[in-house]
């Protein structure tokens, strides 16, 4: 019987999800004995033209990471959805949009302009043309174009399962591969991670206070960070309460607060808005007049609440990113 086929693809990506597969370590060699990795641009020489020749549904599972930023990514994920029986959103970008989703606070014109126009190292010569914006395909050579907004994978194609995290945890990736190969069960909520919030498995949960009332939010660099006390009790913003667990509290163990990369809990649409509700509970509201002052001690509300999840927020991005 033929070995099941696996594929790994990256959209707008950093390669970290590829590393999370390689970090499976020698177990990868064992996987290659029972499965055929047929498409993985980072590691294998299969080209797009080879992929086109695969029969629809002939790939057991395709692990897709990265945000959908360019038109090429949209085309590729639609193709892979046809070629694969299962599509697994691999990593925070595919799951909830990722850090590149912060680009949704800008129009594509602005994004391109800051890199290709207002840049101190840039020469200013007469034939400086923004890449790809030329309508003349002889000069742009068919270069991929930016979509108006960054999307998560399930905003473009139906997705079967999710592996959260930035980066994902190799053990969860390994479990997902095993589930595809039939040696482990799939999770009933379709997400390879914990069901409870990070606080539930946090090493500092014992001293997390029941009630926290802050008159100011401290930024992480402003004082020595206590390695044992709950960050919220130290007045430092930590998104643990509104973030899914499963990362092993790796940032917390490095004495840094959670920034939400595992995404929201079940039944939450908009991680940032939930984060906002949670922040509200921390504010000391004994005097209503001080509320605005307390809020202004948060240095970048939108960037902290939506560090990883802006594309999958209800509003999705800035109004100027939505205008075509």
């Amino acid at each position, binding site marked *: 019987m033929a070995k099941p086929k696996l594929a790994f693809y990256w959209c707008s990506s950093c390669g970290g999800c590829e590393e999370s597969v390689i970090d499976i370590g020698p177990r990868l060699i064992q996987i290659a004995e029972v499965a055929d990795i047929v498409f993985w641009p980072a590691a294998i020489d299969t080209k797009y033209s080879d992929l086109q020749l695969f029969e629809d549904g002939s790939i057991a599972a395709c692990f897709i990471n990265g945000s959908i930023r360019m038109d090429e990514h949209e085309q590729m994920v639609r193709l892979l959805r046809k070629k694969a029986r299962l599509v697994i959103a691999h990593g925070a970008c595919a799951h909830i949009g990722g850090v590149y989703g912060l680009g949704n606070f800008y129009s594509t014109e602005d994004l391109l302009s800051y890199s290709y126009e207002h840049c101190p190292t840039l020469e200013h010569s007469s034939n400086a043309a923004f890449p790809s914006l030329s309508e003349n395909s002889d000069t742009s050579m068919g270069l991929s174009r930016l979509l108006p907004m960054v999307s998560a994978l399930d905003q473009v194609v139906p997705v079967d399962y999710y592996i959260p995290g930035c980066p994902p945890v190799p053990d969860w990736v390994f479990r997902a591969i095993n589930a595809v190969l039939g040696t482990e069960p799939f999770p009933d909520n379709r997400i390879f991670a914990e069901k409870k919030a990070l606080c539930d498995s946090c090493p500092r949960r014992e001293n997390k206070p029941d009630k926290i009332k802050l008159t100011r939010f401290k930024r992480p660099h402003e004082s020595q960070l206590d390695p044992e006390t709950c960050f919220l009790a130290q007045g430092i913003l930590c998104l643990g309460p509104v973030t899914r667990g499963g990362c092993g509290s790796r940032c917390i163990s490095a004495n840094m607060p959670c920034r939400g990369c595992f995404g929201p809990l079940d039944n939450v649409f908009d991680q940032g808005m939930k984060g906002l509700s949670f922040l509200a*509970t921390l504010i000391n509201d004994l005097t209503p007049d001080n509320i605005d002052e307390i809020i202004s001690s948060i240095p970048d509300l*939108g960037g902290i609440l939506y560090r990883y999840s802006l594309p999958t927020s209800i509003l999705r991005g800035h109004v100027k990113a939505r205008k075509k």
Partner: protein
Amino acid sequence: MNIIGFLCNWCSYESADGAGRASLTYPEDFKIVRVMCSGRIDPQHIAQAFALGANGVLVLGCRLGECHYKEGNRHALKRIGLLKQLLPYFGIDSRRLKCAWISANDHERLVELIQEMKKELLELEGSETGYEQEGINKAQEVVS
């Protein structure tokens, strides 16, 4: 124009009824969503209102200290304070979101608030949110 009003069941909704009984009219643009308490309003609801095309959102609750559930309106006050900081990230002018605390017989004040809001939104007319009937755009449900 669409102005979504989240009115708490106790003081605010009562004052809306009171406006009716006193034959006071408020603009048709104002669409009421009744909730048990202003503290029940999830910021996701407000985001959803803007995503679906609301020009403005007005949250009305009991006066501070008079909340039917004691603390609910304080939660709302803090959430709205944060939302007003957050909305400009999305290109939504923070004046499009307001909250006010009224008592059950403040029906004149209610009508005033709505009219003031409409007036201010008309002035903001040039800076439309541009949000249309999208909301969360998710691909259809999973195949298998």
